[in-house]
């Protein structure tokens, strides 16, 4: 039988390279001005944090300067109530949130920060629960959702407090707390996505191939939930940073000696009468990073929905 090329389908047959593909998926970010602004904000802090791994203007914990200096040429952002350089502390403060996790054993350090691990945790747990609830439905769904409802009923901060009251402080506890508080939201999202996606014909196709439920959930459904999931994760990292800041402010966040933005605000607020800058900078840091992630997520979401249309 003669095979004819449909004219409209005549596209250069050169398969795009992996890099080109990656660039293409990244380019979606630059399509949106909002997402670009957001990414720049986030990258700003990531880069600052990376720099701080090898260099900071001054040692972050060393009280080398006069206390409570306003911004000046030596200390660009001023000094805090113990005469420490605020810029250095801010830079290092990025690390625990975004770049490293301190394990309680022998001062071991693990790459990637507490906020991100927490979100990864909630995405893993939430995706697992949400996929099962959404795809399997019935009994699975009832039990899972009931359980998640119970978790959601906890005011988040209260849940943090309970977890921390029970387990004490530490990077891992904060990660656990973020995971526990974030998982129900992710699960609900993934569940609703799974409920939608599972009505698609390609799921029927997989089922009629006799694929196992695990295959259907993780290979067929999950990849198609990634768009909203990535957007949601961005927002969640924002929440997590917000929450870590709040915990730090309450004095039950990430343990010392690394500076913690929330704790910096807490310590500086007592001296706010004489030195507002020391409160302003970490506040701006938290807010800008959270705003950055929000904008990034918003822009990404807009682009993704546009893309789907």
């Amino acid at each position, binding site marked *: 039988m003669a095979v004819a090329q449909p004219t409209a389908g005549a596209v250069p047959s050169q398969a795009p390279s992996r890099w080109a593909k990656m660039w293409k998926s990244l380019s979606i970010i630059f399509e949106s001005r909002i997402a670009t602004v957001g990414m720049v904000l986030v990258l700003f802090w990531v880069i600052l944090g990376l720099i701080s791994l090898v260099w900071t203007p001054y040692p972050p914990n060393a009280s080398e300067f006069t206390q409570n200096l306003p911004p000046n040429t030596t200390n660009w952002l001023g000094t805090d109530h113990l005469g420490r350089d605020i810029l250095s502390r801010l830079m290092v403060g990025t690390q625990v949130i975004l770049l490293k996790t301190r394990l309680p054993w022998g001062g071991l350090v693990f790459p990637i920060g507490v906020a991100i691990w927490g979100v990864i945790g909630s995405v893993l747990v939430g995706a697992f629960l949400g996929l099962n609830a959404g795809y399997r439905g019935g009994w699975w769904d009832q039990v899972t959702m*009931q*359980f998640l*409802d*119970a*978790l*959601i*009923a*906890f*005011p*988040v*901060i*209260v849940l943090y*407090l*309970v*977890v*921390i*009251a*029970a*387990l004490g402080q530490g990077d891992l506890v904060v990660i656990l707390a973020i995971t526990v508080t974030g998982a129900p939201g992710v699960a609900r999202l993934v569940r609703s996505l799974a409920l939608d996606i599972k009505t698609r014909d390609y799921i029927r196709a997989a089922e009629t191939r006799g694929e196992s439920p695990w295959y259907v959930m993780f290979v067929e459904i999950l990849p198609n939930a990634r768009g909203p999931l990535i957007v949601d994760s961005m927002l969640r990292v*924002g929440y997590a940073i*917000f929450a870590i*800041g*709040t915990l730090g*402010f*309450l*004095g*039950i966040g990430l343990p010392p000696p690394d500076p913690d933005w*929330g704790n910096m*605000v*807490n310590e500086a*607020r007592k001296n*706010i*009468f004489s030195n*507002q800058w020391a*409160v302003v900078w970490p*506040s701006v840091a*938290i*807010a800008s990073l*959270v*705003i950055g992630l*929000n*904008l990034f997520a918003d822009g990404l979401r807009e682009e993704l929905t546009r893309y789907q249309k």
Partner: protein
Amino acid sequence: MARFIIRSLVSTFITLIIVSVALFLLLEVGSGDITVKILGVFSTPEQRASYRNQLGLDDPVYLRYIDWLIGNEWRAERQVGFDLVTAPNPQTGEDTWWADVDGQLIRWSLEEGELMKLVRQEDGSTVASLADAVWTTDEGGQESFWGVDDKNNAVKWVRGEGAEVWVLTKAGLRKEGDGPQDYIPLRKGLIRGDAGKSLQYGRPVSVTLWPRVRNTLVLAGVAFLVVMPLALIFGIIAGINEGKPIDRFISVTSLGATATPEFVTGIFLILIFGIWLQWLPAVAIFTSADAIFENPALLALPVLTLTAVELGYVIRMTRASMVEVMGSPYIRTAILKGMPYWRVVARHAVRNALMAPITIIMLHVNWLIGGVVVVETIFGYPGLGKYIFDAAIFGDVNAVEAAAMLTVIIAVLTRILGDLAYTFLNPRIRYA
């Protein structure tokens, strides 16, 4: 609709059970040896073990959970053989436990091997006398007696074998002979309002908790009343002007407000209005129990702080919903029916646009409570949030449990309200 509501009630009930189990496991079981917290770090293992027995901590977990949730005098009554009742302590008004023996309220104590009977008088004092022969002999030939001691426990004494126990007096631990062999610390259980004693304040949790709950309800309620209309109005305005400057302005401002943590907003509000300008009270100093009613200005900054954060969130929700609704076919229908714009917005769009946010807003009461914890801490506002925070920091397990349970109940109740509002707004459910 009935089905919807009943489902939601049943689900709420199950939720509360799960939450209570989780709380109990986390705090009572998960948080390590509570006796260390009570007896202090200088206590010895022997003292802790004795005290664990007195607190009933050696019982299986499920039994402790039941005791904690619904009380245990019914369990103790089977051992003691009399009804167990409470009567107030004439001085403190706190409940004390007694056995009701033919109308007489009685406790026992073992002194020098002799069982003494303490009969409660009208005025609350007790008269001691030697108890009659009450020992019963079990199969092992052991003579024992179950009764109520003077520390609100149902206890088992064994004749001639007074145990050596470490008793926690207000003065600290003291070793006593003549102690009981087994304890059931009597309590009514959480659902009957007995949350145990606060380890921090030493008073029953229920006594210290309620004024705090009232204060928080006032704070959160006022914040809610401020946030809701404003947020819905701004959200709707932004939503119907999608993409226009006013939308950009509202969206950016609300994003900024949402992304700025409560503690930052709060601190600067304190600095500006409380300390620099001195227009408003910087922190919530309750010089009397009804301070918020006598001086409502105390609420101003906490409410403003809560508003700033919550407002942004709800505006964003409402806006998104409004945008979606405004793009829906039935709005197109309404416009193409030639309805004036404001009629379209007011009659066709708003109601549908509020459906989604209202449920989410009600779910968001959790966040509000979370925000309340922070706000109350910043402003020193004596409410539930600060109560939980202080209790958690102190390790006041009983208080954390009760207060956390209460927040969950509040959250769940608002969720039901949200469901009801949704039902009301959505005829698809109302007439299903």
